[in-house]
Structure formats: structure tokens, C-alpha cells
């Protein structure tokens, strides 16, 4: 689904240790610096060293794109054995760049040239030789191909040199010099080649927006959101793919007066988060599905004790240890329902990197205002992918939303019920507000009580107070895109998959199908009215998501009592735009027939 203007996707493929991910990183940063919009995602094995396949895909555009493309325009092979299965993803008249002088004698079919189709343009380069001549080492092969790429397509080499210098600034100067020499050698070679493909790099954007653009990952955006929302304390335990949130905050939060502690496990991470929330701090933790499973009991305490807490959950493949480095959207049930008893909490799921920033900040507002745990569901594809975003000039997040104790003393009721069902809160250190928060059912004073009418009333209080979150200011709980009014096919979606859904919907519209899509950002409490109104307009409703059971489809059809058509995939990879498009076509045709 190509955009107007420039729209080029690069795929760099190699083995762990080839510097594949590093090369992709330099490429996307250089392109962002030049003013292109970037969306990029890396795939790598669970093992740090060894023989796993690494892929770095970078899509650059001048118009906004919402996902990667199925077909790459340029493939760069750093290891033919891994790249050969991906030659088919290069489009017709696209380019394949590869090592032309393998060091070993290869078996028949072992070289990528045997697999390049007649419609694709081959560029054989003596990558190893160039690296060795320029740097007396073969280690800079990944940088040589970047130079070649820049030379071949006429990309300004200055941006690359700056990014290389920045990337290696903590190392010895010789490392920067060596890599710059490798880049320059590759650049000269690429410049001298007669270009045969039809890939054209148009001029980048040069407007005010481009100047304010930054590139970050979903996890990076979460960190920015946390800092802008005034996060006070963060407790975390390393787990892929959420670890970078802990690492970034450990480096950044102390600069902003916050405190970070790596705890002994996920239970302590959420326990300390809730302890800090009880003491009045804006507090958070981050984990993945297995960690969230451990935290489920504590989320119940946060619900019962009406203590604010925020949990960022970057989902990966499950169940159990599952697929630690593959993406999936299968922790929705756990996030929405996990724990003992009727323990409703707020669950939010941003759909892109910009949304990660906004949702992270708003999560703290909601946790504080509604005195509840807030789970923010990310996934590996969203956590790790890079996008160029424009952050707001003014900090968009509110502080001091806590409904505070007005008059303390003997009559103070920590859990007093009222019209909005939110009770005035006293925090330790405040005179006259002494009370005990408990996981036991309690009365409005906070004293344990198992009286039947009390349990009924307190359950109602804890659920009803969350309805206000559906009207939380300046926050999009769900949003419709595409055609207005009645449509043949409506697509519901959540999380990172919504990018592919949007691309598929635009493509379907181009084909003349009346189609619209709705993203659901707030998964609990579910915006039933808005979803029902959307479904009223749709001939059929499709719900693509990356899990086996169709977890949001089950949630929506259960809550609204209406059927939706599931499109589920649990392959560990993002859904393909073409898969969704094919399903939209099929449903549209079925309606027409």
C-alpha cells in the first residue's frame, strides 16, 4: 500500500553478531534526521550470541504511514542463509544487495544470487573486501553496506556520519574513525554503480513539523509520558520486552527528582508501586505477561484498597514463558479480568508510538483521580518499533487530581461513598487522616466488615466510580476512521494491530469498498455505547487481533451480545495488511452476494 511521495522500505537481514540491528538503527536515525517519517521494527532471536536470524526493517515516507509494508523495496543481506527465504519479500524492480565474494565455497543454491528473481535488481558488492581494505577488519561489513546504500540512492552522507559519531561517542575515537572510514568506502563504491532499479528517494519534508519531529520507540514514548506526568517512583523487574522501560527510567527519572528501584521479583515491584501510591506518590511498574500473572493478586489489593497504581505491560507470545522475543496480543483477558473477585480496573491500549506517550501520561491522571489500578497494554511490536512523532509543545498532563480529605478527625471516612463514588483520600503524614487500608472488605471507615449489604454497596461503589473514566478529559477512549455513515465492513481493532488495520482499510476504500475502522483504546471499562453505535453502522464487523482465541472479539461480543467476525493470528509476527484486506474483500463480497 504505497503512499504518495517517497515510500521506501529497507530490510537488512543477517545473523546475530553481524551488526544487523546496529545498521538498521543508524539507517533509521539518519533518515529521521534528514526529515523523513520513519517506522521501523527489528526481529531478533532470544539468544544474545549464536546463530539467530536478525532482521531490521525501516520504512521511510513523506506521508504518514501506520505500519510496515509486506513488500520491501531494498533487501540487504549480511548473511545469505538467513536472507534467502526473504528474497521473495522484495517487490518487482526492487533491489537486493549482497556479498559478491563469499569466503567459503558454497553448496549449490547456497548463494543468494541463485534465488533473486529476474524481476529484481541484484547488486553484488565485495562487502568484506571493502571493509578489510578500509579498516583492516571485516567487522564493519554492516557499515559498508550502509555507505553503499547512501551512495547508490544519493542520500546525504553527512547525516550518516553524524549518527555514526553519536552512536560510538562513548567508545574510543578509533572506533568512530574506523566506522566512518568503512562508511565512506561503501559510499564511494555505491556512488560509482549504475543504478538499475526504480527506487527514487524524493526530497524529505522541510516544514515546521519536521523540525519538531523526534524518533522513539513505544517504550521510549512511555518513558517520556511517565516523566511528563510527574512520575515519582518506579519499581521494576527485568523482563523482555518491558526491560527498556526500567533501564531508561533508571537513567532519566533521577534527573527529574524521581526514584527507581529494581526489585527482587514482579510481586515486589507491584507491591512497592502500591505502597508508594498509598503514600501519595505517582508510581508505576512495567512488565510482560508472565509478570502480570504474578501481579494479579496485588492488582486486586489496589482495587480493594482504592490505591492508585499504574502497570505497563508489554505483551509477548504466551502462555507461560512462551515466545519472549515475539509479539502477541494475548494478555487482554489477564489484564481485564486477572485476580480474585469482582476487581474491575482501567485497562488502556495505545495503538502507536504517539499513543504510548499520551496513554502513559493519562494513566497516571486516571489512577489518581479514580483511585484505581490502571493497566496499559503494549506489545513487543509496539514497544520496540520506532516511529517519528511530534510531541506537544506544552506538557499535556494534569497534576493534583487527587480528591483530598477535606476535614479530618474522628469523623473522617476514607471510603465514604458519594455521588461520584470517589472517596476523599488522606495520605500518611496528613494530620487527622489516620486510617488503615485493607484487602479485607471494609465499611466506609475502613474497618473490616463482611455484612451482606456492605459488600454489595462497596462492590457497587468500586465499579460505578470507574464509569467517569469513559469521559476522562482530553483522552480518546475509542475513535472511528474512514467512511462515515453506513458501511459494508467495519473493522474493530486494538493495540499495535490497528496500524495494519488502518492501512488495510485505506486500501479497501481505494478498491471502492465502503469501509471504516474503530480503534478501542479503553478496554476496561469498555466503551459499549460507542462500539454499539459503530456496529449499528456496519454491515459486518471484522476484528483482527494477534492471539488464538480472539480475546477482544469475545469481550465485545459478550458485552454487547452481537456477533463479530474474528481474524486471529498467533504466529509471533505482526499481522499482514494484505491478510486483513483479503478478509475485508471477502466480507464485502459476501454482503453484495
Amino acid at each position, binding site marked *: 500500500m504505497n503512499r504518495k511521495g517517497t515510500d521506501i522500505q529497507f530490510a537488512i537481514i543477517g545473523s546475530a553478531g553481524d551488526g544487523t540491528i546496529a545498521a538498521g538503527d543508524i539507517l533509521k536515525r539518519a533518515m529521521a534526521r534528514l526529515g523523513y517519517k520513519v517506522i521501523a521494527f527489528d526481529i531478533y532471536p532470544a539468544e544474545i550470541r549464536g546463530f539467530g536470524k536478525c532482521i531490521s526493517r525501516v520504512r521511510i515516507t513523506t506521508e504518514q504511514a501506520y505500519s510496515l509494508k509486506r513488500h520491501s523495496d531494498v533487501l540487504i543481506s549480511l548473511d545469505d542463509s538467513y536472507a534467502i527465504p526473504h528474497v521473495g519479500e522484495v517487490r518487482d524492480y526492487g533491489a537486493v544487495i549482497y556479498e559478491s565474494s563469499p569466503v567459503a565455497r558454497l553448496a549449490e543454491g547456497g548463494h543468494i544470487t541463485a534465488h533473486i528473481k529476474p524481476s529484481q535488481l541484484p547488486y553484488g558488492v565485495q562487502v568484506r573486501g571493502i571493509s578489510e581494505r578500509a579498516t583492516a577488519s571485516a567487522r564493519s561489513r554492516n557499515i559498508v553496506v550502509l555507505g553503499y546504500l547512501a551512495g547508490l540512492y544519493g542520500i546525504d552522507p553527512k547525516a550518516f556520519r553524524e549518527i555514526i559519531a553519536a552512536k560510538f561517542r562513548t567508545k574510543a575515537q578509533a572506533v568512530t574513525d574506523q566506522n566512518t572510514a568503512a562508511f565512506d568506502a561503501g559510499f564511494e563504491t555505491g556512488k560509482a554503480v549504475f543504478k538499475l532499479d526504480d527506487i527514487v528517494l524524493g526530497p524529505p519534508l522541510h516544514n515546521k513539523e519536521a523540525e519538531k519531529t523526534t524518533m522513539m520507540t513505544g517504550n521510549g514514548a512511555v518513558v517520556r509520558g511517565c516523566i511528563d506526568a510527574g512520575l515519582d517512583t518506579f519499581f521494576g523487574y527485568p523482563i523482555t520486552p518491558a526491560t527498556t522501560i526500567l533501564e531508561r527510567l533508571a*537513567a532519566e527519572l533521577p534527573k527529574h527528582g524521581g526514584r527507581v528501584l529494581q*526489585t527482587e521479583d514482579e510481586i515486589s515491584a507491584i*507491591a*512497592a508501586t*502500591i505502597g508508594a501510591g498509598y503514600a501519595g*506518590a505517582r508510581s508505576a511498574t512495567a512488565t510482560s505477561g508472565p509478570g502480570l500473572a504474578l501481579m494479579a493478586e496485588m492488582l486486586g*489489593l489496589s482495587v480493594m484498597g482504592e490505591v492508585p497504581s499504574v502497570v505497563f505491560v508489554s505483551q509477548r507470545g504466551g502462555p507461560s514463558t512462551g515466545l519472549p522475543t515475539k509479539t502477541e496480543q494475548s494478555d487482554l483477558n489477564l489484564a481485564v479480568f486477572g485476580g480474585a473477585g469482582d476487581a474491575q480496573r482501567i485497562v488502556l491500549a495505545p495503538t502507536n508510538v504517539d499513543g504510548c506517550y499520551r496513554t502513559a501520561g493519562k494513566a497516571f491522571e486516571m489512577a489518581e483521580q479514580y483511585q484505581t489500578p490502571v493497566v496499559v497494554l503494549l506489545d513487543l511490536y509496539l514497544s520496540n518499533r520506532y516511529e517519528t512523532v511530534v510531541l506537544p509543545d506544552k506538557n499535556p498532563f494534569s497534576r493534583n487530581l487527587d480528591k483530598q480529605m477535606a476535614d479530618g478527625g474522628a469523623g473522617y471516612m476514607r471510603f465514604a461513598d458519594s455521588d461520584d463514588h470517589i472517596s476523599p483520600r488522606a495520605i500518611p503524614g496528613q494530620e487527622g487522616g*489516620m486510617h488503615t487500608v485493607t484487602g479485607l472488605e471494609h465499611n466506609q471507615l475502613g474497618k473490616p466488615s463482611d455484612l451482606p449489604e456492605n459488600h454489595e454497596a462497596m462492590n457497587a461503589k468500586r465499579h460505578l466510580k470507574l464509569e467517569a473514566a469513559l469521559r476522562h478529559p482530553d483522552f480518546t477512549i475509542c475513535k472511528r476512521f474512514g467512511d462515515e455513515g453506513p458501511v459494508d465492513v467495519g473493522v474493530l481493532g486494538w493495540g499495535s494491530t490497528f496500524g495494519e488495520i488502518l492501512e488495510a482499510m485505506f486500501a479497501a476504500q481505494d478498491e471502492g469498498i465502503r469501509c471504516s475502522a474503530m480503534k478501542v483504546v479503553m478496554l476496561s471499562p469498555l466503551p459499549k455505547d460507542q462500539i454499539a453505535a459503530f456496529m449499528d453502522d456496519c454491515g459486518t464487523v471484522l476484528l483482527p487481533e494477534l492471539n488464538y482465541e480472539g480475546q477482544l472479539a469475545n469481550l465485545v461480543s459478550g458485552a454487547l451480545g452481537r456477533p463479530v467476525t474474528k481474524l486471529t493470528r498467533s504466529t509471533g509476527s505482526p499481522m499482514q495488511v494484505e491478510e486483513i484486506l483479503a478478509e475485508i474483500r471477502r466480507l464485502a463480497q459476501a454482503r453484495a452476494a
Partner: protein
Amino acid sequence: MTEPLKPVYLEDKLNEVRGDGHLSYRSSSLPTWCPGCGYFSVAEGVAMAFNRLKVPSKDAVIVSGIGCASRFPFFMETYGFHTLHGRTLPVATGVKVANDKLTVVAVGGDGDAFAIGGGHIPHAARRNVDITYLVFDNGIYGLTKGQTSPTSVQGFVTPSTPYESHDRPLNPLMMLLSYGASWVGQAYAGQPHHLTDMIAGAIAHRGFSYLHILSPCVTFDKTEMTYANLNVRVRDLPADHDPTDRMAALEQATRTGTPALGLFYREDRPTLADGMADIAMRATAGIPAKGKKARG
């Protein structure tokens, strides 16, 4: 010749108790423990220690887990957090990290501490988070009606171990001493004045203080950790015990047959808050890390 005993008049005694101020730390909720439970001494001891140290009620936070001991916060006129089974220390750590000015006391029983919560103790100790941990050890699960606990004697016959328990009891004092707790002591509910002194010492210590309190369960343990047995077994630490000598403390801790009461060990070292203040200073001033780099 001892002094002849003077008569004690109830009214005088009540006035004395009312007058010294410690009752203001007790809440209007009366303890729900069984009559004779050792925990009454602890509640009184904590109230008197707070009063002695002049800890403002509004700045005291008592964090507990689940069990008979963990009902404690409800009976105190301070801030309280009755959390989940075994999770006392991480919640208390969160409270302290959020607000270093608070006096945080974590309380729990032997099951809460050493069975379900055992994994958290070494980390609170090695971080030296400035909180006090009071473990009320009655060697049994009282709230669930008398099952064996990690500190129960070997061979204990209870409803969950009807053919006797073959598990050896843990030695909490040796564990805490080797975990790196910076203040380790033991007290006995049957000696309330000493208990009060020890609680006050633990709260006054800057760093992670651990007080092990031997406290009989009068309802479910009629044979082992009873007042009758403990009264004859407990002894004071030797007068020449050096509380800065960790090996001497460990040696004393091995003598479980005759539990010693007193301060086993103490050291002064930077707390978790000190470490975080150092990190904040380095982060804001851009001073590079001084430690051992994992990646060379």
C-alpha cells in the same frame, strides 16, 4: 532483704497509664486476639515505644501482611496498610521510597514472614531500607486454626501434619544475620518491659532493623512455645556480648534450645535512601558512575 510489696490501687494505676500518653497510639478498635495472646504485649510495646520516641501518629505507618499478627494496624491510631499474605516488606519499601520522612514499621507472623514472604526478607535487609520489621513468632498458623509453620518444631503434630511434620524449623536470627540486616534482636512477649525497650531500639535504628518476638499462641499450641516452656528456656545475652561482632551473634543464634534475648547485632551503614540520594546527585550533576561496570 527485699522491700515489702506495696499495695497497687487500680485508680492510681489507670491514671498513670492514661497520663503517660501512649494510649493515644491505640485505636478505638479493640484487638481481636484471643485472651492471653502474646501479641497484646507487642501492641502495648509499640505504643509505648512510639510514645517514648515521640513519633507523631500522623507520621507512623504500620504495614502488615495476613495472619493473626497482621491484624495489628487496625488496633493502632496511626496510618496502616493491611496488605497481602507475605508482601509486607515490598509494600513497606514502597511507602518508604515514596516518603522518607515516615516512620515505617512492618509487622507479621512467622508464616507471613518465613513461608510465603521468605523471598522478600533478604532484599529488604541487603538494601538496608530504613524500616523496622517486627516478626511475631508463635510457631504456628493461628488464623487458619493451628497448622505447622516454618518455625514449628520438627515432629509437630497438627491438623495439616497429622502424622507429624518432618521439616526442620528455620533459624530466623541466623538468616537475618547472614542476609545483612543492620540491626538484629530478639525479645519475648512474656517480658513486656524488655520487649518495649527492644522495639524502641529497633525503631530508633537508622536502617533495616529486625526484631524477632517469641510470642505464644495460647489457643492452638498447648505443648511447645508456651509461656511455661519459654519462661524457663529464655536467657539474656551474655553481659559481654559485643553487638558489632557478627560471628558472636551467629554463635548465639545457633543456641535455639535456650533463646537469648537482647540486641544480637548492629552496624551503621548507608540506607536505601542514602543510595538513592547519591544516584539523584550524580544524575542531576552529570557525574559518571563510580562503581564496577558490568560491561567493562
